[in-house]
């Protein structure tokens, strides 16, 4: 298969505390891959390994058959763009400045912005419908507008792979759908961590499930998003059926504590049976 990213046997510890272990997966070219898992499962830590902030102690990350871990930071950034979960204050930068940051890995010292670069920046701004906002301070934008600015920056960065950490965090339903639709239209390989399982079912081509620092399941959303997997990983009672208006799966959550207690007791019994059989 034509993969853009291959991760083999990745291990990462924060000091003495093991966070990720034996992580292996791949991302097919052009696929939108969702990374799902409960809080603290290791989603952000895994993504940080892929864009160079965390240095894995063991394992290999191949991007187009080149080991990402051996590449200088600048070469990595030419191939992988990142949209972080939290938008830090940008100390007075306006929308245009932030979009233009996408040029950073492509330009050497004293290599100034040329006409083609300006054209690319304007094109990205136009594509994300940001023309009226381009002189606005970044901090003054709404959550959805900020995500569009970061997508425009990623477009200028022109990567092979886009990594998004919780791209729909803090967004209302309208902006959640708008942002993910925009990413889909970008026709680029994407790895995005997503909390909302229904959004993951609707937008992702493949899903990776991470729990306690390990990939516990991966595959097509219809195969991965099962009642059994969700109850085990997320400790939540759900039913999964087809959405009446679309072909995607729909996860219905049961919000009752008594159901949850029953589920935990059932899982406990199942585990004990499994142990005694073994």
């Amino acid at each position: 298969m034509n993969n853009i990213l291959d991760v083999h046997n990745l291990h990462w510890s924060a000091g003495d505390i093991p966070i990720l272990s034996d992580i292996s997966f791949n991302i097919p070219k052009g696929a939108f891959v969702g990374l799902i898992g409960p809080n603290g499962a290791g989603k952000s830590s895994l993504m940080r390994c892929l864009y160079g902030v965390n240095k894995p102690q063991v394992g290999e990350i191949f991007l187009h058959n080149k080991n990402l871990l051996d590449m200088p930071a600048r070469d990595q950034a030419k191939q992988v763009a990142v949209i972080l979960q939290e938008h830090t204050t940008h100390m007075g930068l306006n929308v245009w400045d932030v979009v233009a940051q996408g040029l950073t890995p492509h330009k050497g010292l004293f290599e100034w912005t040329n006409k083609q670069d300006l054209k690319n920046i304007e094109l990205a701004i136009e594509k994300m419908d940001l023309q009226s906002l381009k002189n606005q301070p970044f901090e003054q934008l709404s959550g959805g507008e900020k995500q569009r600015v970061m997508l425009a920056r990623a477009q200028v960065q022109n990567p092979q792979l886009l990594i998004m950490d919780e791209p729909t965090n803090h967004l209302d339903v309208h902006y959640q759908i708008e942002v993910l639709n925009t990413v889909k239209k970008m026709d680029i390989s994407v790895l995005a961590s997503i909390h909302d399982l229904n959004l993951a079912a609707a937008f992702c081509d493949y899903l990776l499930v991470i729990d306690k620092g390990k990939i516990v399941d991966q595959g097509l959303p219809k195969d991965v998003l099962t009642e059994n997997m969700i109850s085990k990983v997320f400790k939540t009672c759900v039913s999964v059926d087809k959405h009446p208006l679309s072909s995607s799966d729909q996860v219905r959550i049961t919000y009752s504590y008594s159901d949850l207690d029953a589920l935990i007791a059932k899982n406990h019994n199942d585990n004990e049976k499994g142990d005694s059989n073994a």
Partner: protein
Amino acid sequence: MRNWPLALLIALAVISPLLALVVGVANISFSDVAQIICGQFSDSCEANALKQRILFELRLPRVILAFLTGAGLALAGSVLQTVTRNPLADPYLFGISSGATFGAVLVIAVSGFGMGASQGLFSGWSQLGITGGAFIGSAVSVLLVISMAGRSVQIERMVLAGVATSFMFSAATSLVLYASDPQAASSLLFWSLGSFTRAGWENLSLPFLVLIICFILFSGFSRQLTALLSGDENARSLGVEVQKIRISMLLLTSLLTAILVANTGGIGFVGLMIPHIVRRLFEHSGQHMMWITILFGGVFMVWVDVVSRTILPGHELPIGVITAAIGSVFFLLVMRRKSWS
């Protein structure tokens, strides 16, 4: 960015030094200055020759040194605020200025360099010795701050280490002043508070050269610096080697500060204040921000020097006293605005 503030700044950068040349004890008019600069001034009579000497040997180097000092300190402050993402950062906050002042004061006190009455003594080797002392002092500060910042070069730890280093070197400077004989201590105290009285053509070339080199290097790294404004993780994802850039920029700013401190003594708050004012007046000027900061800092310091020479008839106020007075009020205003916003 609006164009008129920029046009006004450029006009001020040209006119301010010319106006500053007119101010002084000796009565030299604006037309005298214009004629001398254009080479049309008659130096046949003794009075005119004296005016020409005062202008070329005293006032012009002094105005140029003031401009270079303001420009350099503002640039250093702007870069420090960017690499640390701390709007209150300046060469003082990281102990750079205090380290440089201590180094220079120690060299002067021990060797007697720069204590002579005539300008000539404060040149050549002595100036180089003071500059070297200042640079070693500032480099020690920076290395202390970096070594305390932890493996991931945490900004909060850097700021705390900087404040501690600053106090440590200030105390050491006070000790040197206390231990010196009263005449030397008085001279050192005046110097440590900042002054352009020793400006001469011989001590302009190094500050000018270092300012130009730093400006060129900072401009070359402007993309990386802009990326740092968006946070370390963002910058790393854009291909910036965050720690290497941060440490290199800190060392460059310490070199720039040390060269200026060695020539002018300790002048605080300029590096804090000017980048703030520039960001406010010239919002979102992006890649032009650096040279706007340089011009603004230069113009500001030329006028501070004019005030220091004229505010008390027959006396000259130390530059650092005026910048600290303006800067501390500014600092409080910034804090107040932040607490209300």
